[in-house]
């Protein structure tokens, strides 16, 4: 079955943005420098993900991903993982808050079924439990 025929899990949004807590989930291979790097040696990809805390200093983040040019993200992680930008929007009152968990994973994989039925559900559960996110912004590389 083509991916596009799967059910789309559309969740309505019924809050005010100024009272909304936001989490970031990125496929851009972002993780803390002291977390285990994604396995780019495996041609099938890496199905794991990393939890990034909200108070992280963005200079402590890095990218491990070999399927896009992340040299710009190496200079400023906000181009794929806008944690400092989110803080700006919180400070100006555009959003209500920043979630207690954010997620980085490496979007490249040859194991689509395992990503779709495994990793994606694990990430959603992790966000659902304990992040206090009301909505999620997704980014790729």
């Amino acid at each position, binding site marked *: 079955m083509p991916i596009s025929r799967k059910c789309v899990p559309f969740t309505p949004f019924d809050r005010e943005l100024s009272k909304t807590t936001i989490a970031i989930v990125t496929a851009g291979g972002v993780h803390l420098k002291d977390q285990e790097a994604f396995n780019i040696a495996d041609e099938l990809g890496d199905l794991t993900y990393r939890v990034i805390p909200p108070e992280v200093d963005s200079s402590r983040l890095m990218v491990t991903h070999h399927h896009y040019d992340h040299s710009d*993200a190496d200079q400023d992680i906000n181009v794929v993982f806008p944690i400092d930008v989110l803080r700006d929007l919180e400070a100006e009152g555009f959003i209500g808050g920043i979630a207690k968990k954010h997620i980085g994973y490496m979007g490249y994989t040859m194991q689509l079924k395992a990503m779709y039925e495994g990793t994606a559900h694990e990430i*959603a559960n992790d966000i659902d439990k304990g992040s206090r996110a009301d909505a999620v912004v997704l980014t*790729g590389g």
Partner: protein
Amino acid sequence: MKGIPTVLITVSPEVSAQMRPPRALYPKGFKIGNSLGRPGMRELQQRVLRDALSLLTQNTRPGEFATIEYPEYGEQYEPPRVKKL
């Protein structure tokens, strides 16, 4: 789980459309690796994120994209195409 509303920022709209994301922003002409803009362009990054989050409050249809131009980004890039089999 009751579900969490999501909004996607993508620089590969044709590729992303295959998954029919509920809400999506395509910042027109941004290259891969520049979802929010270029390094250090904080005001542009703020605009892109505000525009993306604002889609949460608008009527959207899965698979359709809000395409927004940001002239301050500078040089434009063609997005990757889906290969026809």
